[in-house]
């Protein structure tokens, strides 16, 4: 009889452990579903455009670039929570840093493509502050003896805020810091890479479908 009881207890323990694990798994599943549902409950596709000014400072050569930038983007997410954004940007360069030809007075325009993740905060203060991080790639036209364009990669972080105007429209104000690493400049004997840090202030408008 004792042996039977022991065996019975053994199975009870196993069953309880199994039940615990199952409950734990269910809890995780429920939490995950809650998270997903909260993330996507208000998610919408949105498009936006913005314009801004930037100041770029190079790290390994004494050069600066104060120019303007425009961005078109498409995103998906909740204005009050998370979003993912894909954007293309166009910068009109006023500086002549890479080009050496006497035929041009400035470097060519810069075209870029970026992917970013955004987290906004609903503090019930009418505006929706956000933080965004992302990376991108692009190129700019230059006029050098051995290179006619220069590709680059970038990482960027943004602090800003959405200002809802209506259910569908919101304004966006932001301040972005962007680190850019350019393709190496070829001077036959050496190939030197240049990097820069840009401070970008912009404002734009978004439409949420």
């Amino acid at each position, binding site marked *: 009889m004792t042996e039977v009881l022991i065996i019975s207890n053994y199975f009870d323990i196993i069953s309880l452990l199994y039940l615990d694990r199952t409950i734990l798994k269910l809890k995780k599943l429920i939490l995950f579903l809650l998270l997903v549902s909260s993330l996507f409950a208000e998610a919408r596709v949105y498009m936006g455009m913005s314009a801004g000014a930037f*100041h770029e400072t190079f790290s390994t050569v004494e050069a*600066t670039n104060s120019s303007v930038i425009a961005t078109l983007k498409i995103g998906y997410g909740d204005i009050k929570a998370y979003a993912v954004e894909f954007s293309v940007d166009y910068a009109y360069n006023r500086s002549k840093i890479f080009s050496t030809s006497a035929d041009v007075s400035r470097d060519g325009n810069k075209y870029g493509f970026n992917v970013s993740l955004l987290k906004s905060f609903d503090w019930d*203060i009418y505006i929706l502050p956000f933080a965004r991080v992302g990376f991108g790639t692009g190129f700019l036209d230059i006029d050098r003896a051995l290179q006619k364009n220069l590709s680059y990669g970038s990482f960027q972080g943004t602090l800003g*805020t959405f200002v809802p105007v209506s259910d569908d429209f919101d304004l966006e104000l932001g301040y972005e810091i962007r680190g850019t690493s350019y393709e190496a400049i070829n001077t036959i004997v050496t190939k030197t890479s240049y990097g820069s840090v840009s401070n970008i202030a912009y404002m734009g408008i978004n439409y949420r479908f």
Partner: protein
Amino acid sequence: MVLYQILPIWALTIDFRIYMKLIQILLILFSTTFFISCGDSTTSSPIADVASISLDDTNISIHSTDLQKALTATATYTDGTTANATADLTWNSSENSTLLTAVGSVFSARNGGDANLTIEYANTFYDTQNVHIKKLISIEHSDINISDIGTAQTVYLGGTFENNETNVSLQTNIRYVSDANSTITDVNATQFTLTVDYNSSSILIQVILFENTDNQQDDINITFN
């Protein structure tokens, strides 16, 4: 009357203070960046570009029996600086049957002639110079005691090239062939000597030039009587 006295009571909540703080931060950021954005832009590239490449030698010549002729090439930049670009360029000969090239050097492929040496980079920069290969006309040699048959003897050699250049080293592209009465036991290209063993009072050593090329010549004979 101050601002908080004319604002409704809700405006004094913590939310409003956060709101004002954010606006304040954004205004500071914007004004700072716009202020900076109005700064100067560099309008003249500080990164020097390549202006030209050139061979350092202009009247290049090589004796047909020289091991090689070492050359250097220089890149000149728009800011006036220069750099040794020898290893970064492509070296080509206009006529490989006359002149062979490697990075930083040229070699003779025949006894005499001219060819153009071109250095090139990315189909953008070029420099071309003529290379003249000096022809070996004859070979000067020391004498040997021909009557001392059976004792190996050393012959000192030197080339006479076009323009009557004499005592020029014979380092390569040359092979010595002994006749039936003699044996060449050693050829020292560094010391320019030939060691010969013989069993006759008259021997003939044939000199073959550029044997392993399409330009083989065997027009020089050395006779010891």
